[in-house]
């Protein structure tokens, strides 16, 4: 199959037609920033963008995404390495604890701001509801998103 990931087209051979995008990214393309957490679209650790819309990569067969534009956490920063404002805010607010869920959280947050640059706190909560954080970084996640939405990138 041919997959467009982060602006590059990859030719991928997989054994199973139903291989979820998550495992193609992680095992075949070496893009391990997208995480495996539950395998049943419950935790959001595997969130990527498919044509700009957040999707659970653990629950979507990669083969169904030929022709789609897939963006992963590795593709969130600009091509020259400049971080997305949310990535910078995550660093400035020291959001991560273990950090395992954060790529999924960032992908959700980035999709939200792309669609709604000035969300309310409630809208942030609604948009990020699918993404679990076991460490409890929610307040800092919300704070970092609101800081970017409010135009400030640093504390």
């Amino acid at each position: 199959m041919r997959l467009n990931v982060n602006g590059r087209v990859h030719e991928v051979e997989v054994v199973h037609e139903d291989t979820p995008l998550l495992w193609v990214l992680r095992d075949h393309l070496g893009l391990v920033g997208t995480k495996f957490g539950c395998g049943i679209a419950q935790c959001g650790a595997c969130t990527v963008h498919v044509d700009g819309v957040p999707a659970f990569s653990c629950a979507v067969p990669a083969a169904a995404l030929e022709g789609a534009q897939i963006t992963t956490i590795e593709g969130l920063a600009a091509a020259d390495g400049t971080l997305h404002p949310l990535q910078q805010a995550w660093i400035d607010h020291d959001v991560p604890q273990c950090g395992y869920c954060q790529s999924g959280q960032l992908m959700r947050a980035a999709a939200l701001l792309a669609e709604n640059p000035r969300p309310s706190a409630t809208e942030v909560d609604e948009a990020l509801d699918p993404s679990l954080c076991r460490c409890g970084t929610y307040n800092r996640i919300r704070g970092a998103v609101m800081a970017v939405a409010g135009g400030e990138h640093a504390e």
Partner: protein
Amino acid sequence: MQSDNGDIVKLDRRAFLKLTGLAGGGLILGVTVGCSRPQPVAATGEDGSFQPNAYVRISEEGIFIYAPNPEIGQGVKTALPMIVAEELDAAWDDVTVVQSEIDAARYERQAAGGSRSIPDKWTPMRRAGAAARHMLVAAAALRWEVDPEECETRDSMVIHTPSGRRLSYLELASTAAELPVPDPDDVTLKDPSEFRLLGKRISGVDNRPLVTGAALFGIDKQLPGLRYASYVQCPAEGGRVKRANLEAVKRLPGVIDAFVLESNGEPTELSAGVAIVAVDTWSAFKARRSLEVEWDESDAAKDSWSRAQEEARRLAEGEGRETVADRGDVNRAFGEAARTVSGFYQYAFVSHAQLEPQNTTAWWHDGIMELWAPTQSPQGAKQSVAKLIRVAEDRVVLHQMRAGGGFGRRLMNDAVVEAAAIARRVDGPVKLTWTREDDMAHDFYRAGGFHALQGALDGNGRLTGWRNHFISFTEDGDEPVRGGGISGDVDPGPFVPHYRLTQTLLPWRTPCGYWRAPGSNVIAFAHQSFLHELSSAAGRDHVEFLLELMGEPRWLEEGNLWALHTGRAAGVIRRAAEAAGWGRTLPEGRGLGLAFYFSHAGHVAEVAEVSVGSDKRLNVHKVTVAADVGPIVNLSGAENQVQGSVIDGLSAMLGQRITFENGRARELNFHQYPLLRIGRAPEVDVHFVQSDFPPTGLGEPALPPLAPAVGNAIFAVTGERVRRLPLSAEGWS
């Protein structure tokens, strides 16, 4: 500069005399020629860099500080190197943090458990930084031919104060590498008032790689020719493989091999199961659907949570089978009481549910078992693997990987041992990944438990008597399961004149383990909720009641910094109450609850502000926390730990339980085992009482007070007492 026996071979006589001459001044070397103690030690690293000890390496490339302990989200990969950087006077931006290799000889205990990283490493890492700084000053003084007393350090530089000359640590590294290392016990440490870095907010050292998706975690390990494994165990602990359709599985697309592993008799190491090795993770997972295993469960767990609950309710009517603590005259206290109160508290088993499922990459090559593992006890992992595959421990090389949460689960190295056992049968490296269902079905669970509590109050509303029949579980018929024990010393034991604690242990086969703040995370719920029942029954203010219990400021054990200090306890109780506006008038349907708990040397009080809607719908608006863990190392990381503990505590309290029938966990993924989502996360207001005691850990002690604080607030709003966890078991949501 020296050979193995410590003789100085390169340092010339002039330089050496100068150095020893300096020993009476600012540079305390502790080097005594011709004397047995202490031997001069090499300061030269393998690459010629300045490497005075296990924690510091400086070369022209930069300043490297080694982080010895596993990073599981508790922030030690940032906080521990900060301690070195402080004494070294290195500018934090100049520092590169390196995760240490596993080496007990150099680092002693390398583990994440018991909130012990900061207290264990505080002094050795300060000394390591200070020793390096002293040597860099000596090196600069040598170069300038000045008295080191005239030099100061700042921002990775030595400055000759009278002349204003400066040399960077990088420029000085090669000279410092020639010098003898001082005895770390003799170096002068900073006075805390001189700290420049500690106590500041420092963003985690892995944050940039984390937010850009770099490979950091165990599960992210990639190697050329990597194979992918899945491991299928019996749903009930102790089951053995009687028959499996291995030949059919081996023929499945993408499958390379399938084989049975026998248990080695230790559930913490290797339980029986079927390993499937495949070309990618999905092929391994998918092959499980075609795998048919007939399990021999004759010796497997048959545990039932519903049966245990019935048994406990029946037993709670009487006293426990054994007496754990008995002080004063409890019967008399109850006989003379103006008022007595009783309550039966219970809590279910829970799973760790760390977000990164258990995994390890293992590669058996050249007589070496090389492992990449996210583990909280890497030294234990090496020992277990060496024992299993019968090689010397130095033939097991373990690389510490960042762990996607731990919470105590990764103190057990079962997945590491399984991966090693599988790798012995595979040509090339293999990554074992558990499914979420594997993870929840084969956890080392936080044990459920029961407390039949009785309290006696005198005519002044003072607590005079306490009885607890504690019902827990035992695997071996003798000792409580891991994390399922109790002692008479836990709060409020030491404060009650007439006190009797008995226990009954029910047989239990499914392995239990340590879950964040083991024991405390549930005992605090029962005891601190019940204390509120007592203060309420006495018609007293809960803060005043708790402060009276604590009495005069004192250590409960003189000379033991790990004991409760009543003054520190009172300090955080007052601070939390004040910050939360204790006693203020709240809108209808809203209330405050306060609880204190002492665990892992941390004194923590929390106030929860809660409202209750119709249909027992809870809203925890805000939790105010006051914590005394001594001076704070990294303020940002410390606040993270407290906020996380509060949210973790609430998450577990609301809806998490693992129920067992026929030895099988019935909740296997997040649709059955809910984690708190962002919309329900309360505001967490954190206050540190920064006492002068040595700093202690913060990964755990802020969790235990949360559940009783919320329960006490629910009572304040509704008059209904919460005595059972999770709350969802009694219709709360």
